[in-house]
């Protein structure tokens, strides 16, 4: 028997001509036609709370941030000192902002590059039928997620403290080091610790994402592969990975965007230090907005918007892949 395996082709993958797609879009949605008269009011009533919350907590802050960014405003007095694009000009020349941007991107990329393969590997293992106690493992890996970020930061601060932290005590007792190691004394080791602690905490969440994706791969495909004599490696690389690729792109996007929001761990673990060397954008904005009196809301708003633009460009550059992935996801039915 040959062990040649082919990835099962989706029913109509790549076969949909543009014209056909347009025709499909024009097809009237029968459900929409059913909402008539008085029911429309009900639809509005049920949507209203969400719309109000969206307006108040998403749209309004966004518009306000854009507005504030054109003023030198301390957040308290009247907003009357219009500075145009002055805040943006200052930020573009602010070395600390760019250091924070670089640190944020390093954190996001490193964090994503480590946590996604690791969590995928663990998800593959935990979805194996032969493995006993999967619930226990799932709980163990998920547990750090329920610990508040601030608490996690404090725990690791004490664990890693060179004066009397458990890690250094162990290293010294085992004579692995002669002097305590201060991982927060150096930009790169401090950033690495931030990445690793963050992964430790969020790992379970991504594992669950991957497990959800993996469980959507039809069992019959694996059964067919078994009949063909496929090895576990072949099943993983020729069935699992291609089948979950559409969801993987979305998970990757989520992982990157979430990692760019890093804040709590920086506050509790490094405080942006040593000096300012582990500043990330969220921390920079927080310090600008609230770090000194008078506050610099205008400047902080401009920094937030500028970084949002940078992040938006990065994220939309993945948009092509995401759209393709979404299309594949529908076609694969995962």
């Amino acid at each position, binding site marked *: 028997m040959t062990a040649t395996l082919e990835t099962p082709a989706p029913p109509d993958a790549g076969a949909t001509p543009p014209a056909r797609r347009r025709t499909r879009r024009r097809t009237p949605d029968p459900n929409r036609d059913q909402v008539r008269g*008085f029911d429309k*009011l*009900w639809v509005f*009533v049920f949507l*209203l*709370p969400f719309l*109000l919350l969206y307006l108040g907590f998403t749209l309004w802050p966004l518009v306000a941030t854009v507005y504030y960014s054109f003023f030198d405003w*301390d*957040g*308290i*007095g009247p907003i009357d000192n219009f500075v145009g694009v002055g805040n943006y000009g200052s930020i573009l020349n602010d070395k*600390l902002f760019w250091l924070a941007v670089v640190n944020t991107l390093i954190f996001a990329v490193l964090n994503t590059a480590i946590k996604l393969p690791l969590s995928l590997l663990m998800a593959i293992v935990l979805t194996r039928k032969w493995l006993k106690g999967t619930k226990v493992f799932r709980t163990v890996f998920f547990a750090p997620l329920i610990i508040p970020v601030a608490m996690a930061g404090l725990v690791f601060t004490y664990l890693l*403290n*060179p*004066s*009397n*932290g458990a890690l250094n005590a162990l290293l010294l007792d085992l004579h692995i080091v002669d*002097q*305590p190691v*201060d991982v*927060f*004394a*150096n*930009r790169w080791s401090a950033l690495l610790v931030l990445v690793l602690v963050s992964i430790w905490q969020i790992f379970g969440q991504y594992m669950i994402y991957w497990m959800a994706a993996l469980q959507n791969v039809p069992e019959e495909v694996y059964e067919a592969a078994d009949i063909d004599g496929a090895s576990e490696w072949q099943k993983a690389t020729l069935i699992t990975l291609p089948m979950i690729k559409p969801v993987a792109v979305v998970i990757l996007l989520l992982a990157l965007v979430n990692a760019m929001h890093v804040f709590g761990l920086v506050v509790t673990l*490094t*405080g942006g*230090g*040593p*000096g*300012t*060397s582990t500043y990330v954008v969220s921390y920079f904005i927080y310090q600008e907005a*609230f*770090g*000194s*009196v*008078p*506050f*610099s809301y205008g400047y902080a708003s401009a920094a937030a918007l500028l970084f949002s633009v940078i992040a938006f460009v990065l994220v939309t550059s993945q948009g092509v892949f995401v759209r393709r992935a979404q299309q594949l996801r529908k076609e694969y039915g995962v």
Partner: protein
Amino acid sequence: MKALRRAAKTATTAVALTATLALISTACGTDPNRASNGGGDGKGVTLKIWDFSAEQVDFHKLVAAEYHKQHPDVTIEWRSITQSEYTKTLPLAFQSNQAPDIFYWSDSGTNNMNQLLEQQWIKPLTPSGTVPENFLKRWPAGSFVDGINQSGGKTYGFPFSENLYWGPGYMFVNKKVFGDAGLDVNNPPKTWTDLKNACAAVKEKTKAQCIASPSKGKELQRIWGGLAPGLRNEQFFDLKTGKFSIDDPAAVKTFEFIQDLNKSGYLAPGTNDKDFSRQQFAANQAAIYFDGTWMPSVWKSQGFADDQYVVAPHPNPDSGATGALSRQPDGNKYWISSKSAQQEKAWDFLNWMTEPDGYFVKEYYKAGFGTLAFADNKKLVTDPALLNIMKIAETPGYRVNLPVPVLKCPDLAKSKAYLDATAKRPSGEYEVMVEALVGNKPLQPLAAQLVKERQDIFEKTLKEEAAKGLKVSKDCYTFPDWNYTSDYSLDKYKK
């Protein structure tokens, strides 16, 4: 039947809409002044006071209870917020109209009142702005100065802590660790070399660290305040030249000594916060801790008694001191909020609080919290550690009066130049020092860049303000006839 169903539908819709609107209006319609007003229900007035003196929480409860006993119509709600959070929480409270009636603010030193007026956070102590003569007499002459705590003939503040004893710059020595190291606790290090030698002994003969020195955020100020006055002072602005000064030779030399201590393994490792370092010292894990007048009460609250440590003067360079700790009229710390609807009641309380023989003063000293500007410290202080601190501070030249720019140029009360220059990276000096310290890098390049940024903003803003008609210039901040080891007395401004 159809009409009935329609009516029912309409009624249900109306109920749903009303409920939604009610929820929204409840969420948006809280009364920000509800807590401090409290007087409309006939049960009296609630005065809200905020500060960040966590070790004084029980004391504040006692004060509030006593005041309520004496003034049944007034209830005091005294809230202490963590120091690091306070500077964020208070402004946000003002922004959201939830500011307390009385608040503590000391961040801007001698410029406190001007900054608070600029931000419209404060109102005069009394509705008329004038305070009775017997109130003013509680302080030594010269305590109420236009531009510091008075403006436009109105009094806005009063010195709370006196400024001879109060401040950073004391060395606390752990008796047990010193004893274990074979050192004489009654003969603590007097020079920088003595300090290094003592640290060498501690390192060699004990498992403890030598100096518990916090460095997280701006906490390096603890050891900086203990060593910088040996050469200049602990400030980052040189009033002799009118320049920001973290890059000047005296500051760099002081930093290099701290860096040398660190390289030799004499500073406890880690980027620790002050609470960690204080605990380290109190747990006999460190021999020395540098900090200020408030420490006896802090350690008392942690169960570390004053017979377990001694207080000593800060060590000086081997060639002798060429500087001194700074003394400024910056003790104005409690202010009446502009948002308070209870100005008169707030004034009554502050008037009561500052009675030299009153309940507040007696209990304050009983707890050993420090030294007050409106009380007879010599008579009232009984805490042995605090008495020792007073003795040290009374040494001539230990703490000297700095020149006060606003007294030289009254228009500085309206100037934002210094504030603007320091608003950007307010902890910048400590950030560059920590970066150089842990990275084992030279301070000078980092410091020079920060000084340039600050000085550029400072001088540019002064020029812009002068162009608008304010009588301000860099000269207002320059006192070439002053030297760092002697008082700049009030009569010098009259020349």
